[in-house]
């Protein structure tokens, strides 16, 4: 029988293949023709756009509908499946990667650091990992894809070469290795419990028939939560976050806040959806981790003086919100969690883009210091308004309706399961979060006279330098996405399917 062992539908795999092939092409081109810079970015953008287009087919499918490939002969067991949640997360990951690339677009006015091809191919490789993990349905590819999404980010952080970047990269690498160990152990336990290498409800089904296997499966899920908690920056695996964000170049920090988070949640959702039909009791572990992450993240964010560190700690807090609905294992919780993550990614990327634009006009030192944002509304009205919208969306206040809707969606499964204590903790954290973001916004809208009162303000440093067009495109792109989804949140929430 000369039949293929696995059936391959490459159109379906395109969201994964496109960035992976793009990464390879960039490296090959770099070997063939030296000293190219812009060409690499164009190749990368093309591959990402192809991937984005390929996900459209999977959007908005009804519940239960999914397209599968890499199927083993006979049993109908497939190693890759894309339904609407998967496709939406893939789409988001690639759009976030596009924004990152735009932010790191080479500046003609500066000398080349010579590593353009490496940066671009690393970004593409990590993106391919993120899209692959969303579709992976077996332990092997799930683990490999997750690491593919993680390890390039270590290199991206370290490439800048500064001392702070190295220490950030080391923190990232150490935690990555620990989390990989946990995940490998979890995979082994999963295999022990279910006797199957697949991460599907069908595989988990066997546990219902044999209650003795249940404790092993629970342990496996706990280890998976712990392992992924690192990538989502959940307490107590958050310690790398401020170091890495602050040490890394700004676009890389945006990448960590966007694509990496999508990859991590996609990986977690694969597992949660496999065990959802078991009707598991609420996962107290996730509830506790979520509550602690929110609280610690918000409190630390309140104390930060640097905006990148503030965004890093706010990531910790927002990660708590992202997993909040997952404390109740249900399909509604999966949708809510996905919706919250998307809202967070859009708003955070917008905030990072604005900071990146300000780095170019006002210099890195000023753009990274919170107190230097005084009077921004007067200097850069458009950038300041856009930043304000992003911050309000993160805080969950109108006119950032998207953040508010996401908050409603995230709280709903919690309330449905009558986890009152968790709901009240979330309410208190909503307040803390508002305090965090309004503190920033308050400095942004403070007027000129207040600036004069403030001591030690250096004015006019690097004024008049124009923002790079690619950065402006990134700001505009993220801003339009946020405004459109704020007016009609259904566009974003509905993508995930119902």
């Amino acid at each position, binding site marked *: 029988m000369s039949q293929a062992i696995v059936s391959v539908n490459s159109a379906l795999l395109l969201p994964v293949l496109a960035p992976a092939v793009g990464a390879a092409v960039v490296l090959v081109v770099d070997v063939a023709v030296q000293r190219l810079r812009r060409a690499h970015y164009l190749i990368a953008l093309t591959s990402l756009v192809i991937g984005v287009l390929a996900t459209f087919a999977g959007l908005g499918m009804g519940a239960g509908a999914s397209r599968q490939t890499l199927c083993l002969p006979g049993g109908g067991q497939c190693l890759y499946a894309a339904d609407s949640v998967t496709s939406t997360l893939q789409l988001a990951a690639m759009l976030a990667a596009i924004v990152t690339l735009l932010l790191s677009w080479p500046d003609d006015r500066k000398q080349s650091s010579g590593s353009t091809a490496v940066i671009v191919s690393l970004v593409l490789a990590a993106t391919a990992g993120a899209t692959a993990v969303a579709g992976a349905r077996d332990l092997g590819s799930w683990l490999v894809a997750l690491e593919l999404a993680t390890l390039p980010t270590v290199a991206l952080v370290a490439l800048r070469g500064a001392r702070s970047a190295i220490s950030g990269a080391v923190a990232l690498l150490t935690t990555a290795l620990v989390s990989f160990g946990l995940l490998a152990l979890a995979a082994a336990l999963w295999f022990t419990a279910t006797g199957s290498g697949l991460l599907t409800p069908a595989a988990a089904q066997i546990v219902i028939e044999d209650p003795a296997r249940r404790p092993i499966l629970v342990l496996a899920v706990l280890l998976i939560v712990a392992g992924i908690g690192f990538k989502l920056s959940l307490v107590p695996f958050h310690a790398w976050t401020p170091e890495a964000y602050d040490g890394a170049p700004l676009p890389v920090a945006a990448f960590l806040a966007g694509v990496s988070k999508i990859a991590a949640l996609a990986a977690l959702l694969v597992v949660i959806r496999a065990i959802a039909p078991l009707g598991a009791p609420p996962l107290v572990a996730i509830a506790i981790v979520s509550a602690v992450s929110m609280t610690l993240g918000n409190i630390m964010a309140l104390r930060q003086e640097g905006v990148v560190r503030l965004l890093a700690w706010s990531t910790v807090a927002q990660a708590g919100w992202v997993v909040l609905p997952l404390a109740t294992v249900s399909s509604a919780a999966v*949708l809510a969690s996905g919706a919250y993550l998307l809202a967070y990614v859009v708003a955070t990327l917008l905030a990072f883009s604005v900071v990146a634009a300000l780095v170019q006009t006002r210099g890195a030192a000023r753009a990274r210091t919170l107190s230097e944002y005084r009077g921004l509304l007067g200097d850069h*009205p458009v950038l300041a308004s856009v930043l304000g919208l992003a911050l*309000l969306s993160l805080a969950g*206040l*109108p*006119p950032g*309706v998207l953040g*508010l*809707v996401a*908050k*409603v*969606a995230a*709280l*709903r499964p919690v*309330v*449905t399961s*009558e986890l*009152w204590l968790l*709901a*009240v903790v*979330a*309410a*208190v954290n*909503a*307040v803390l979060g*508002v*305090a965090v973001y*309004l503190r920033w916004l*308050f400095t942004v*809208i*403070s*007027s000129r006279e*207040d600036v004069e*009162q403030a001591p030690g303000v250096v004015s006019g440093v690097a004024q008049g330098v124009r923002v790079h067009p690619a950065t402006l495109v990134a700001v505009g792109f993220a801003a339009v996405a946020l405004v459109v989804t704020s007016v*009609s*949140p*259904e566009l974003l*929430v*509905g993508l*995930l399917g*119902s």
Partner: protein
Amino acid sequence: MAVPAVAGAGLILSGRGSRPPTEGNANLFSLAASVLTAALVVGAVITRPEVDQPWLPSLGVRLQFAVDGISAPLLLLTAALGIAVVVHARSHPSHGGSPTTFYGCLQLVVLGALATFFARDAVIFYLAFEVVLVPMWVLISRYGDSKDLAARADASGRFVLYTVLGSTLMLIGILALVQASGTANLEALATARGAGLTRQAQIIIAALLLVGMGIKVPVWPLHTWLPPAHTIAPTAGSVMLAAVLLKMGTYGIVRLVVAPLPIGFGALAPAFAVLGVVGIIWGGLACLVENDLKRLIAYSSVAHMGFVVLGLASGTTVGLQAALFANIAHGVVSALLFFLVGGLKERWGSADLATARAALREVSPRLGIALVVGFAASLGLPGLVGFWGEFLAMYSAWSPAPDRPQGLMRVLVVVAVTGTAVAAGYSLRVLRLIWSGDRTTPAHQDARGGEWSVLAVLVTAVLVLGVAPGLVLNSTIKDVTAITAQVSR
């Protein structure tokens, strides 16, 4: 049908309007928008249109807007004050930032308040509730009249954080309520009467909602955000805050607690009433010693809202009517007083009562007469608007609904009566200090133009509603009876 949508779009446009126009143009544009809004609101109140469109199908949220007897007076009040603050700001230019942002924020506050009163979907109600926060925060933090940046940051931050805590608790309550009854439509919720909810669940949800909206009302001891916010806010901000934003809390309690959760509210009503009466006494006593005039009026708001709470807690038709009437009455009176005090503070340079100044009776009779009417209404003089709400609230609490503890309620009424005596005390104290006397220096200008017309209209409203309370009571009676008829069943 699309009246509120059109109004909302117009308002947002004005808020985001072009940058360079001068103060006068911004004012004119804003005025036109306000008048248009008011006309549309009057139209909506008369024709009673309904809007019902899907907005977020995945979450089951629908854009549902409608008007009924309970919301109609509040809508009219909001729209009228929307015009009033703009007219008033003509003669009192804003400072601290660009005029367009100032008027834009005012319009957004009005938009949020209108949307709150129009909303018929519980989740949309929550969204609209939140819309007012950021513009109000900007108004206080940027246009506040304290020169001190830290004081403004503190007052505005406190306002936002308190209310966000309240509204998030309210959101949890709303989600639980919607989940349990399977509908987010406020009317359907009111007719369902909490069917399918156990007594315990009703109490938990009612408690969440009461604490959440109690912060907004504000109910003692959750009122501490109010005095600083009022003191710092610009006149227009204080007026909107007292006359419109506080009403959203009581309105929400009627819509989301009293109507859909009769058992839960019944169980919590005594405690709620006690807090209300403590608020009456607390606010009154604070007013007796307070030397900052703006802060004094803020504390008197706490006392007045205590009567609203008492009326709500009685659980009778009369009590609910009283609460809604007192709501409107407080809106009119506090708007009048904040306009006055804002104007005085501008003339005097501060609002400190301890400084001797020219008596209003001598140098500015118009301001003087408006002040006398305002404080007389505030102390509940019969024939003025303040009387009916307080009198009916106490009357209803004296003979409350059968499931309320009668003895406790009667004790509370007695305490509340002493509260009115305290109110008389502080009102007369203020009048003695700034109205009577024969000091004529330093002289200041009397109210003229826009300021005087706004004051005159509000004084007229105080008198008219005081003589003919039926105007409001008849509007609300039908829907109120519908709520209480089922409560007492």
